C-alpha cells in the first residue's frame, strides 16, 4: 500500500471549534418558528387495560391545542418486529408507557394539562422476570404477536411471550462434551443499565402546508427514522425530511426510531407549526431503551490441556414491553456466543422474552457485554479448576486467522493474542502484588449487528476552487465520524483535509446511510466515501486528459494540479478542471464534478434457521482489557490501580480519536462494572435520575493505558475497522476477574458495588 498522508494522523476534529465555543447546534438549540409543545401522560400501572381516558378537563385547560390518544395513531412501529405503539392502545404494557399526548402553546400549559387527564385502568397481572415470563401459564403481554409484521430472520412463538428464539448448532455438542475432561456449568446475571447520554431524546416536527413533513431529531439514524415513519404513517419518502443535528451522546439509545412519531399526528393538525417534544431526564431513563437484562446458563467442556471442546449457552433476555429492536440483540448474542474463542462444538439457545419492564433495546456492545461476561468469567473458572493461567487458557482458545466463529464464519485479519499480550504486559501479569490486590484480564470480539444488506452511500462535490464537500448520512454523536470520514476522503482525493467540508445529515440532501450504529460507519460510510472520492478523481483525470490532450495513465494529481508525469510542463490546476472545464477554444468539456460511491456488504449471508450457521459478520474487531485492583475487605470498595485497554483498529484513521473511543468505552464499561444497575419494583423504575443512578465522574475515573493494535482489515477503507463499542465489552469481566484474583471469590453478576463485594466476602466466610 502506498504511504498514507492523512489517514493515520491526528488531525483536529472537524467539530472542535463549534463544540468548545458552545455554538454547536443540538436539536433544542434551534429556534425554528411558530411552536407548540408536547407532553406525555404516562401509565401508572405496568400491565393493564385502559378502561377510560377522560380528556375533558385537560382539553379545557388554557393554552391546550390538542390531545391525542392511541386510537389516533393508525399503525405500530418497529425496526425488526413491528410491535410498538406510539401511545398505548387498549392496554398498557409497562409503567410509564405514554397513553396520551398534549400539545399546548407553552410547555407549562402542556404539563399542567397532562395532570388533568384522568385514566382508569383495570390492572392485569404483570410479569417482571423473563424466566417466569417464558413459562406456559405466564400472562401474555402481546396477544397479537402472531399477527405482527417481522423480518423473517426472527422466530417468535405466538401465544407466548417469546419474541425471538435464536438457535445455533455447530459441530456435535455431545461429542464435544464427551471429549472434555472437565465440564463446568454456571449461571450468570447481567442487570439492565441505562445509556444516559447527557442530551436526552428530543424531536421537533413540522407538517408543512404543502404536505411535507420535516423532522428534527436526536436520531442516530435519520434514514431509518424516515423509512419507519413513512411506513407507519403511510407517507411517501420524498415527503419526509429528517434532520439530525449534532447528537449529545447516543450509545444506542437513539438508534432506530424513538420519539419522533409521537408528535407527527399533532403536527398534522396544525400545519406550519413546529411541535416539539423533549424528554426530561426521568422520562428519558424510564421511557426509552434500556439494556436488556440477561439471565444465562453457560456450560463448557474442556480438555486437561485447556482446550475448550464444547460450549452450551442458554440466554434468556428481558426484552421488556416491546422488543422491536431487542430481537436482534438476542440474535447477535446468539451467533457470537463463543466470544473471542474458537470452539468446535456449540449449542446455543437465545430467547428474547417480553416482560412488563421498560423497553429493552440497543446499548453500546449490542448484547456482547452481557453475553461475553459469562464467557470471560467462565474461562477464569476453567483456569482455576485446571490450575492453569487464565491468560494461557485465553491464548489456547483465542481466535486467530482462519478460526471459525460460533456461526461458522471464518475470521481473517485477527490478532487477538497481541491484544491480550499487550494488556497483560502493561499490568505486569503474573506478578502478585499483595494481599487484597489482584489482576484480571478479559478479551472481547464484536462485529456490527446489521442486516446483510445494510447499505451506505456518499456524494462528493468538488467546488470550482478545488475544495470539496463530502455528503453522507451518518450522524455525529461524539465518535468523531465527521473527522475520520473527511480524512478518508482527503486521503483518496489527495485534497487536504482542511479543504474538505462535511456536515451532519439531512435526508433531503445527504445520501442514504442505514444507521450510525454497530461501530460500522468508519467501514461502511468510509468505503462509500472512498469510492465516491475515486469516482470524483476518475472524473478529474478524464477531464484533464481531454483538456491536456494527454492519456490518463500519464497524468497525476497532487491535490492542486494535474500534470503529465512525462512532461511536468503539461498541467492544469484543479480550478481549471473543476470549474466547468473548457478548452482554449471555449468549447466545454465537462460540468461540475460530483463523485458518487455506495456500499453494501457482499460477505454476509442469512443464517440457517435451525443451526444459525452462516456469515453474520461484516468484520470482526478484537480487543482486551487488563485491570489491577485493590479491595478494601471491610468496606467492599474496589480501587482500580491499573487499567489497560487494547483494541485492534486495523488502521487507526485518527489515532487521537481512536484513543478517545478507547477511553470512552473503557470508562463506560468501568462505570457499569462498578456502579450501574437500573432497579425496578414490579416494573416501576426506581432510580431514574442522576441522584439515584450514578455514573462515573472525573474523580473516580483512573488513568487508562491505551493501545491501538493495527492488524489491517483487508476490505476496510485503508485497512480500518470500527472500534466505537468494543472497548466497553471486556471491562466488567476484567474487573471481576481481578477482584476474584484478589479475594478468591466468584462473582456471577455485576455491578461490583461496595455492598455486593462486602456481602460476598461475608458470605464466603
Amino acid at each position, binding site marked *: 500500500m502506498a504511504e498514507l498522508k492523512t489517514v493515520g494522523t491526528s488531525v483536529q476534529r472537524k467539530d472542535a*471549534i463549534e*463544540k468548545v465555543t458552545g455554538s454547536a447546534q443540538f436539536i433544542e438549540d434551534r429556534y425554528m418558528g411558530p411552536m407548540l409543545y408536547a407532553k406525555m401522560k404516562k401509565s401508572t400501572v405496568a400491565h393493564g387495560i385502559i378502561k377510560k381516558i377522560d380528556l375533558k378537563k385537560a382539553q379545557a385547560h388554557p393554552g391546550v391545542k390538542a390531545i391525542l390518544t392511541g386510537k389516533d395513531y393508525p399503525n405500530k412501529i418497529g425496526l425488526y418486529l413491528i410491535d410498538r405503539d406510539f401511545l398505548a392502545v387498549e392496554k398498557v404494557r409497562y409503567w410509564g408507557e405514554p397513553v396520551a399526548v398534549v400539545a399546548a402553546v407553552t410547555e407549562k400549559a402542556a404539563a399542567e394539562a397532562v395532570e388533568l387527564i384522568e385514566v382508569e385502568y383495570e390492572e392485569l397481572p404483570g410479569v417482571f422476570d423473563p424466566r417466569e415470563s417464558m413459562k406456559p401459564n405466564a400472562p401474555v403481554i402481546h396477544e397479537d404477536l402472531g399477527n405482527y409484521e417481522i423480518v423473517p430472520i426472527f422466530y417468535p412463538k405466538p401465544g407466548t411471550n417469546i419474541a425471538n428464539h435464536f438457535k445455533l448448532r455447530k459441530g456435535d455438542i455431545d461429542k464435544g462434551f464427551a471429549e472434555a475432561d472437565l465440564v463446568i456449568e454456571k449461571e450468570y446475571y447481567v442487570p439492565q443499565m441505562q445509556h444516559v447520554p*447527557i442530551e436526552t431524546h428530543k424531536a421537533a416536527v413540522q407538517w408543512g402546508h404543502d404536505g411535507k413533513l420535516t423532522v428534527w431529531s436526536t436520531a442516530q439514524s435519520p434514514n431509518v427514522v424516515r423509512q419507519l415513519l413513512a411506513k407507519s404513517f403511510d407517507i411517501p419518502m420524498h415527503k419526509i425530511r429528517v434532520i439530525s443535528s449534532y447528537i449529545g*451522546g447516543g450509545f444506542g439509545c437513539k438508534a432506530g426510531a424513538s420519539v419522533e412519531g409521537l408528535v407527527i399526528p399533532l403536527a398534522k393538525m396544525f400545519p406550519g407549526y413546529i411541535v416539539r417534544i423533549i424528554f426530561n431526564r426521568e422520562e428519558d431513563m424510564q421511557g426509552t431503551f434500556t439494556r436488556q437484562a440477561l439471565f444465562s446458563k453457560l456450560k463448557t467442556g474442556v480438555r486437561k490441556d485447556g482446550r475448550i471442546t464444547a460450549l452450551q449457552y442458554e440466554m434468556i433476555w428481558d426484552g421488556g414491553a416491546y422488543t422491536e429492536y431487542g430481537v436482534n440483540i438476542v440474535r447477535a448474542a446468539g451467533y457470537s456466543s463463543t466470544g473471542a474463542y474458537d470452539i468446535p462444538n456449540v449449542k446455543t439457545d437465545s430467547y428474547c422474552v417480553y416482560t412488563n419492564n421498560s423497553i429493552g433495546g440497543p446499548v453500546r456492545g449490542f448484547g456482547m457485554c452481557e453475553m461475553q461476561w459469562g464467557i470471560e468469567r467462565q474461562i477464569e473458572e476453567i483456569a482455576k479448576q485446571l490450575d492453569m493461567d487464565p491468560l494461557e487458557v485465553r491464548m489456547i482458545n483465542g481466535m486467530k486467522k482462519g478460526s471459525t466463529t460460533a456461526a461458522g464464519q471464518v475470521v481473517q485479519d485477527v490478532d487477538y493474542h497481541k491484544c491480550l499480550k499487550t494488556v497483560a504486559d502493561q499490568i505486569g501479569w503474573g506478578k502478585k502484588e499483595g494481599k487484597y490486590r489482584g489482576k484480571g484480564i478479559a478479551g472481547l470480539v464484536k462485529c456490527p449487528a446489521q442486516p446483510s444488506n445494510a447499505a451506505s452511500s456518499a456524494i462528493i462535490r468538488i467546488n470550482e476552487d478545488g475544495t470539496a464537500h463530502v455528503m453522507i448520512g451518518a450522524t455525529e454523536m461524539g465518535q468523531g465520524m465527521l473527522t475520520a470520514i473527511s480524512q478518508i476522503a482527503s486521503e483518496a482525493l489527495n485534497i487536504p483535509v482542511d479543504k474538505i467540508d462535511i456536515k451532519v445529515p439531512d435526508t433531503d440532501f445527504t445520501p442514504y446511510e442505514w444507521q450510525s450504529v454497530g461501530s460500522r460507519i468508519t467501514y461502511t460510510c468510509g468505503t462509500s466515501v472512498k469510492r465516491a472520492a475515486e469516482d470524483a478523481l476518475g472524473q478529474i483525470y478524464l477531464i484533464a486528459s481531454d483538456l491536456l490532450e494527454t492519456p490518463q495513465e500519464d497524468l497525476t494529481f497532487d491535490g492542486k494540479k494535474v500534470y503529465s508525469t512525462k512532461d511536468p510542463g503539461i498541467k492544469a490546476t484543479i480550478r481549471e478542471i473543476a470549474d466547468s472545464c473548457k478548452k482554449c477554444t471555449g468549447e466545454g468539456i465537462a460540468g461540475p464534478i460530483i463523485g458518487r460511491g455506495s456500499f453494501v456488504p457482499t460477505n454476509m449471508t442469512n443464517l440457517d434457521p435451525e443451526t444459525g450457521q452462516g456469515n453474520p459478520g461484516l468484520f470482526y474487531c478484537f480487543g482486551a482489557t487488563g485491570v489491577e485492583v485493590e479491595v478494601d475487605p471491610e468496606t467492599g470498595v474496589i480501587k482500580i490501580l491499573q487499567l489497560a485497554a487494547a483494541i485492534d483498529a486495523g488502521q487507526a484513521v485518527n489515532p*487521537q480519536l481512536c484513543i478517545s473511543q478507547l477511553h470512552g468505552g473503557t470508562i463506560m464499561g468501568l462505570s457499569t462494572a462498578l456502579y450501574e444497575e437500573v432497579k425496578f419494583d414490579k416494573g416501576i423504575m426506581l432510580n431514574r435520575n*442522576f441522584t439515584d443512578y450514578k*455514573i462515573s*465522574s472525573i474523580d473516580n475515573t483512573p488513568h*487508562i493505558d491505551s493501545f491501538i493494535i493495527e492488524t489491517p482489515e483487508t476490505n476496510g477503507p485503508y485497512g480500518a475497522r470500527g472500534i466505537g463499542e468494543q472497548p466497553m465489552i471486556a471491562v466488567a469481566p476484567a474487573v471481576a476477574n481481578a477482584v476474584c484474583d484478589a479475594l478468591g471469590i466468584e462473582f456471577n453478576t455485576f455491578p461490583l458495588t461496595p455492598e455486593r463485594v462486602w456481602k460476598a466476602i461475608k458470605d464466603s466466610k
Partner: protein
Amino acid sequence: MSEKIAINFTVNGDNESRDVEVGQTLMKFIRDDLHLTGTKSGCEIGECGACTVILDGKPVNSCLVLAVELDGKELVTIEGLTKNGELDRIQKAFIDHAAFQCGYCTPGMIMSARALLERTPEPTDEDINEALSGNLCRCGAYQEIREAVKSASKK
C-alpha cells in the same frame, strides 16, 4: 400568567435589563430568553453540570438558580469566553487534547475548568477532579479533560 419581575444584570460584559417570570430557572432564562444556547440542560437537578455558568465569578448550576436571582449580578456563559473571535486558552486546550466527544457537556465542563483556573492557576490532578466532579461526561473524555486543564494552566 406568572408574575414578572424586572432585573438588571450583565451578561458576558454587556448590561441588560429584562422582565423575568418568577419560577423560571436561570438555565431556562439563559437559553430561552437570552438565546445563549451554549448552556445545556441535562438533568434540571444540579447533578450533571451541563448548565454550569459563572455567576459573580463562581461556577454554579444554572438549573438551581432562579432567573430573578440574577438581578445585580454578573453572568458569564460559554459564549463569553471567546473575545473578538479569539478562543480562551482553556478552549484551545480542549481542542488540542480532544477533551470532548459529543460536545454536550463541554460548555459546562469548560466553565467549571475556567473558574478553577481563576482560583487555582496551577491545579493538581486532585484539584481538577474536585472542581469537575459535578460535570458528567458520558462519552468519557475525563482523561483528556484532565490533560487539557493541566496544559492550559501552564500557559
